[in-house]
Structure formats: structure tokens, C-alpha cells
């Protein structure tokens, strides 16, 4: 199977030569990652072609270990002489840094062995090879809903629709003999609508979908969903300040998981800048909550057989029955923290179903909760990585008796991530396949909302 825009044999040799140059220049170890990507993007404005973009990239990242010292370097100038000069300068630069005995390549026994062709995870769609400008333009047009939206009598200010497809190829080698490859295609569609309500105000909303296979892309519904979302936000009203049940749509629920995963990383823990300090092996979360990393499921977006060091991925429990089972510790942090290494980072975390069996999706979870706030988007906000305190501006709806009553405006949600997760009511079964982080609709009780 010929795959366009992937790393050629000649380019593989360039990567290997770069590794050789670094070793010859005196490195005690080195890792080279070659990346090659191509992306074509067609943007439509109000149903007409507005922008065409073609992006092709090819670069090498070189990690050098020399005299107990370490540095990272990259270049997109890949001529043979340029690469030689690059690698020699990289080694010379590393020698000027200070020694850090914890910097080393991962143990070869921990590294991935099976990522040989890059196609093992089934994330390449052969349809990609047949794409051309006219097909892309046709797909972009099919995602538009502008004409239908105008026909509905709504004052549409603009519809911006973007179709893109891309291919990425990664080739990772190190001086211990590691060799890994990962090839993925991607097809993406996104539409943003801005409409004017009867009240004269503007309302906007966005919808997107992404897939490694063209046939699974939600093309035809994208524009319509963005339009319907914009329409649903017309006429918002403030809510009374207070504590409400929170239902987090599967579109944005990953936002409350990411800070927890970041706090479990060695880089945060070693710097004592984590609200998950000393949590390993402790029951921090509610009984019954399970979060697994599932990076090896073939054909699923986000799956990958190795991390950025080349360490083999495997399924692992992050949280099991409420207990923290994993810190994300790479080779460097393992040395710094005196711990056994695990993996650099979460790859494809999945929040498992939690709560009553009928809690499946947004609708059933709202019915379960009765009254509360359905959050479908965030507008600004942040969290304190040391304490886990957060405050986010939100977009969404007030619901009563399981049914949406009105859109809300000017609302801020505040709390603490540990307290929030301990107030988990339900986790559904409706994670979006287009996300690497598989987080379904979530519901929490007693969340503070200001308005």
C-alpha cells in the first residue's frame, strides 16, 4: 500500500544519519524523532470557498545525552551537511550545560517492540490517498448549512465551515536500538455560526467532528448542529447564585479531568506543584469511580503503542474504585523522585460508567438529576495547580425536571477538583469517539454557581 506524504526510505536514512552524527560527535546516547505531516484545509464562508491552505512539514527532533548532560534540539533543515552541523552543534551545546545524572535513555526492556510499520493501530484510512482538491471542496460544501439556515427565517450573520484532512508520520529511533513508527490519517470538520436573535444580540456556537477514517466523519450534520446550538442560546437569562447539580456535556467534560491527570504527572509532583501530592495508593475519589488509560485499542483515536521516549504503552488503571493507581513518571522523573518509571503521560484515558445504570447520556443524566445547570461550553477561567481550586466562566442551560428551561448567561462555576469529583453523581456511556480523552457526560452535586 502506497501512502502519500509519509516518511520515505531516504528520509529514514537521514534520521539514522542524524543519530550517527550525534554519537560520532561524542554523545553517550541520543534519540531522534522524525515527523512528517501534510494537511489540506478548505474554509467556506457563507457557503462559498474563502480560503485554501496546504501545509507540509518535515522536521527532526534530537535529544542528546553527553557526559551526564542533556539537551533537546530540532530543525527542519534536513540537508545532509546541515544535519551534520546541527548534530555536532547540539552535542557541543549539551556539553556546556550542567550534569544531571537522572537524564538517561529508557531501559530498552521497557521500550515498544511492535510499532514497526506505523500501521499497527489501524489509524490510517486508505481513502486519504485518493483525496484531491475537488473532493475536498465537495466535502467542505456538504458540511455547510447556510442555505437551509437562511431558509428557516433566522438572521444568519455568518457561517464559517472548515474541512481539513491530514496525514502524520512519526519515526522514532534511539542509540539503544529502539525503532518505532506511527502513521495516522485525520479528517476533520468544524462549523461556527453567528446569528442575530430577535433581541438584536448576536449569538454564536460551534460544532466539530474528527475521525481517522473519512466514512466515520459526521460531515452532513456539522453545519446543522452548529446552527441549532447557536439558535438554542438565544434569549439567555441569569440564574440565581447558589449550589446546583452540574451536568457536564460530553463535549466539554474532559475539562474537569485534565487538571487531575496533569496533577498526577511527575513533572508537577516533583516540583511539589500538584494538588495530587502523596495521593498514590490512596482512596482520593469516590468508591466505584474507575479511570483507565487504554492506549492500545486498535482503530480508536488517541491510541498509540509508545510514548515520546519510546516506552511501550499498555492498559493501566489510573483510578480504580476511587483509589489512585498510577503516577505518570518518565525516565527522568523516576530518577529525580526515586520511583519506578511508568509512562510519560496519559495517552487515551477513559472514564468508566458510574452511578445508576440508567445514566447513559446527557438526556438521561439530566432526568436523573432533576434540576441543575447543563454546561455545554466554557468561556475563560483557570485552576490553581497547587490547590486544585478552579473558577470557570460557563455557557449552558438551566434545566428543571430533567428538561432545559432556558440558556444562562454571565455565570461562573467555582470549586475544588477533589471536592467536585467526590460529589460525582453519574458518568455516562456517551464519550465522543473524536476525542483521545474518553470522558462521557458527567453529573456532580452541590456545585457553586455565581451570576
Amino acid at each position, binding site marked *: 500500500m502506497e501512502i502519500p506524504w509519509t516518511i520515505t526510505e531516504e528520509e529514514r536514512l537521514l534520521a539514522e544519519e542524524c543519530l550517527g552524527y550525534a554519537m560520532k560527535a561524542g554523545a553517550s546516547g541520543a534519540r531522534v524523532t522524525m515527523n512528517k505531516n501534510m494537511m489540506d484545509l478548505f474554509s467556506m464562508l457563507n457557503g462559498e470557498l474563502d480560503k485554501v491552505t496546504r501545509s507540509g512539514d518535515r522536521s527532526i527532533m534530537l535529544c542528546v545525552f553527553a557526559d551526564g548532560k542533556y539537551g533537546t534540539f530540532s530543525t527542519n533543515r534536513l540537508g545532509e551537511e546541515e544535519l551534520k552541523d546541527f548534530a555536532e552543534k547540539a552535542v557541543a551545546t549539551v556539553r556546556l550545560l550542567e550534569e544531571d545524572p537522572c537524564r538517561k535513555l529508557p531501559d530498552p526492556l521497557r521500550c515498544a517492540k511492535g510499532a514497526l510499520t506505523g500501521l499497527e493501530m489501524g489509524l490510517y484510512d486508505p481513502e486519504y490517498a485518493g483525496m484531491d482538491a475537488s473532493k475536498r471542496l465537495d466535502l467542505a460544501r456538504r458540511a455547510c448549512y447556510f442555505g437551509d439556515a437562511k431558509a428557516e427565517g433566522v438572521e444568519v450573520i455568518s457561517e464559517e465551515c472548515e474541512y481539513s484532512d491530514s496525514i502524520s508520520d512519526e519515526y522514532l529511533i534511539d542509540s539503544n536500538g529502539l525503532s518505532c513508527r506511527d502513521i495516522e490519517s485525520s479528517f476533520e470538520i468544524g462549523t461556527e455560526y453567528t446569528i442575530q436573535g430577535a433581541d438584536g444580540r448576536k449569538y454564536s456556537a460551534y460544532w466539530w467532528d474528527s475521525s481517522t477514517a473519512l466514512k466515520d466523519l459526521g460531515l452532513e450534520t456539522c453545519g446543522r448542529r452548529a446552527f441549532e446550538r447557536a439558535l438554542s442560546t438565544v434569549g439567555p437569562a441569569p440564574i440565581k447564585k447558589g449550589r446546583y447539580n452540574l451536568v457536564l456535556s460530553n463535549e466539554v467534560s474532559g475539562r474537569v479531568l485534565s487538571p487531575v491527570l496533569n496533577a498526577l504527572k511527575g513533572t508537577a509532583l516533583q516540583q511539589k506543584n500538584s494538588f495530587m501530592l502523596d495521593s498514590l495508593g490512596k482512596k482520593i475519589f469516590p468508591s466505584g469511580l474507575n479511570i483507565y488509560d487504554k492506549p492500545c485499542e486498535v482503530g480508536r483515536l488517541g491510541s498509540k503503542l509508545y510514548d515520546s521516549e519510546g516506552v511501550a504503552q499498555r492498559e493501566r488503571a489510573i483510578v480504580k474504585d476511587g483509589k489512585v493507581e498510577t503516577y505518570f513518571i518518565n525516565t527522568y522523573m523516576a530518577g529525580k523522585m526515586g520511583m519506578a518509571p511508568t509512562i510519560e503521560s496519559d495517552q487515551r484515558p477513559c472514564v468508566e460508567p458510574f452511578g445508576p445504570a440508567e445514566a447513559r447520556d446527557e438526556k438521561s443524566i439530566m432526568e436523573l438529576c432533576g434540576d441543575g445547570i447543563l454546561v455545554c461550553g466554557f468561556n475563560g*477561567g483557570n485552576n490553581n495547580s497547587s490547590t486544585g481550586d478552579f473558577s470557570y466562566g460557563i455557557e449552558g442551560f438551566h434545566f428543571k425536571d430533567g428538561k432545559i428551561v432556558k440558556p444562562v448567561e454571565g455565570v461562573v462555576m467555582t470549586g475544588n477538583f477533589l471536592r467536585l469529583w467526590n460529589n460525582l453523581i453519574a458518568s455516562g456511556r456517551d464519550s465522543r469517539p473524536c476525542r483521545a480523552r474518553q470522558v462521557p457526560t458527567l453529573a456532580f452535586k452541590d456545585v457553586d454557581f455565581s451570576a
Partner: protein
Amino acid sequence: MINSQESYFNTFGVGEAQLSKLVEAALEHGGDYADLFFENSTYRELVLRDGKVSTGGFHVDYGVGIRVLKGDKTGYAYSESTQMRDMLATAEAASAIAMGSDTDGRTAAKIVREARSTAATYTVQHSNGDRLVRRFFTGRPNPAADRYPVAMDWRSAAVESLKPYLEKLETAIRRKDSRVLKVIGILEVSMSDILMYNSFSELKYDTRPMGTLAASVVFSDGKSIENSHVSRSFRMGAEMLTEDLIEGLAEQVTSRLDDKFSAKRPKGGVMPVVMGAGASGILLHEAMGHSFEADFNRKGQSIFAHRLGQKVCMDGINIVDDGTIRGNRGALNFDDEGVPGQRTCMVENGVLASYLHDRISAKFYGVTPTGNGRRESFRYNPIPRMRATYMEGGNSEPESIIASVKKGIYVDEFSNGEVKIGEGDFTFYVKSGYLIENGRLTMPVKDINIIGNGPKALADIVAVGNDPKIDDAAWTCGKEQSAAVSCGIPTVLVKELTVGGE
């Protein structure tokens, strides 16, 4: 820094004949305008962790972006190679936007000649009554007008000469307070050679330096942990590294530490908010500046669309976006479309006076581009972006502004902000501030959000301090692409905003 024309031609292996040929190739299918953006960037970083500068590296990014405009439509492609064969293929890809359009049988060379003869399609001169105001410097870049001359080029600064600054920074921070637990010091520097050429035969070039020194510090008082991050960033060479800079960063990151540990989340609600001078300028950037970017207005999406010439806030308020501040992170000799860097008054005496334009929107509105066409790198087409956005000083004493508030909140340290362009709704995450009770700063507060609506917040500014201040932290705007910006504001009082709290 502006070097000789030859040095840029040598860097990219091109001359005027090749540039002209590429533009002609880009217009082969009948576009109205084409431009080329060459970039050769070197980034370096050094990281101090656990007392040692033990991580570092450099990164090279090189290529050319080619853009074709057909009316308001854009074709864009780039190449990481500046071999003529590769660049011609890139020009062909960018020209796709014009395929199928009517060229009236004109050749690419004729289209280019016509464009050059009018030179007005995307660069109309601003007309002030009957008087043509010549605002463009149409000649070659002049080193005498350089806004960021470099005394010490980062590319030739040795690692050994840079490491001590990070070590001194940690020492200075630890000397200030015994509660310091961990320090990460980061020095990030870059130099970018830029060469631009377009179908008007305009040739511009400069070399853009950027240096950022930053510290992330974790503090512990034995009971709880707090963190803080500070940075200073300038379009300067290695001469920016001084003892004063280090001392200033150390002072800032350790200041008001007692308050940080004792700070609480206040009760939320709607209340007057006093924005402290400097970093509160993020309010202008997010809540107003983005809505003034002309692409959002051209498409009718911005809440400020169709409001040019209207009163948007009280008399005396001037809001400026400025690319002319020497050494500022947002300074530009030329924007990324080759338009000279300039100062644009968006709000003048309370009236919306100008949007921020790139060439496309300027043509749409029939005005001169304002030098806001910016891009993250050659990989991106330029779009209207801010530079240094600030409010000019007013007449009130900052103390009297605080004293005028019976019950409200004072904020001066932000870590995030976001706006919905159409609705104008914004949210800012406030790292620290104080309650105001009976005209005095009382309880320290932290980790709250302030939300409001851009036009309303602007109209609700009821006092402007006489203490304008540009914040020199490493602000980066994330509108589709990253862009280095800065912001500033004097102390201002907004009579009513929503504060998220307990």
C-alpha cells in the same frame, strides 16, 4: 535589527529576479495579489531546575509562505525548502484559490504589471478630506528607523554567558523569602530573519529578536502550598539581561506572599471592580481588542461591527494598539504583510475610531492597513492581530479611585482571559487581588473569575487613573495562531462586573 538586503538574499538563497518570478507564478491563475514571507528563525532555551541549568537546546525553523488573494479569498501554502523548484510548486498550490476565475485572457505578468501600476488594490492611501496623507514608508527598510536594534545577538551569545543569569535569578528569589520550595528558571530567546516581497514589488526585511526570562516558584509555609509565575519579555538582544531585570523579577514573584497564603475566595456577586495598573490590560486585549480586529467586523461577527464613529465609552478614554514602542514584545518595524509598524488609536476620546486591519480588511473598508497583519510563522497566513494594546492615562489618582468604592474588589494579577467575539462576553481568571471595603483594600482574594460583556464593561468605566503602565510579561495571544503581544492600562474603575466566588 535591520541588516543589509544582501544578507537576507543570501540567507534565503534568492534575489529580486526569483522573487518576481515566484509572484508571477502565484498569480498564474488570475489572483489579484500575491506575497511571499521568508523566515529563518532560531530559538534557544535554557532551563534551571533544582538549582542547576541542566536542560537546554536550540531549534531551527526555516521556510517560505506564499499567499494569493482573489478578492477577499485567500490561497495559502508554504515550503520548508527555498529551492526554486519547491517554491514554484508552493506558489502553484497557493494559486488554487484563483483557479477557475476569470483572467480575461491576461497573463500572470500582465496581472502583476497592473497591480504594480495601481498599487492601490490592497494599500489604499488614507484620505483626509482633500489632502492625501502619505502614511507609508514605501522605500527599503532603514536601519536608522529600527525599533529593536540589537547590541548582543542571541545567536552569538554563548551558553556559558547566559547560564549565570538563571543562577542569579534563583539566588535572588531564595534570598527574598525563606518559604521558597522550588524554582524553575527559564530563558527563552529567538532571532528571526524575515524577508517579504509582494506583487507591488514591495521588498521589506528585518530581523526580530525576542528574549524572555521567567520564573515559576512554589512556596510552602509548612501548612499549604502556593505557586507563582513571573516573566519579562522584550524585543531585545542579550543586552536585556541585567541585574535590575533579575532583581525586579525576584521582587515581583515574592511580593505580597503573606497575602497569597492568607487569601480567600470572596463571596461572589455583581460589584464595582478596580483594575490595577499594568497587567489588567488583558481586559482591553480580550474584551475590546479582539472585537476591534477587522476580520471579525468585516464578517459582521463582532459585537462592535457597524459601530465605527459611535461613542463607546466616556470622554477622555483613548485605547491604542501600538507597534512602535521600542523593544516592546509587540513592536514591529513591519507587520507580516510588509506594512510599516504603526500606532493605531482604536478609541479616541470615547469614540470608536478605527479597527485593526490587515490588507484584506483594509481593502474591504477602503482604508489604509494599520500594520496589524500578523502571523505565527511562515506556516500561517496573516490575519489582523494586536501588538501592544493599552489605555492611555486619565486624570484620577489611583488612591482616590479605590477610596471611591464602598464595597468591591481590586484585581491586579491575571492568568487567563477569553472572549466570545459575537456576544462580547468575557471571562478573566484573577490570580490575586483584594476586597475593597469602605474605600480601603482589606482581605486578600485569589483564584476567582471576573466576567462581563465587552461593550458594557467599556461603557461602565467611570474613572481612569493617571498611572498608565505597560506590562512587560510574556503575553501570548492565541487567536488561531500564537502571537507575541503586550498590554497595559492605568488603574480604572468599572462600576459593575460579576465576580465569581463562594
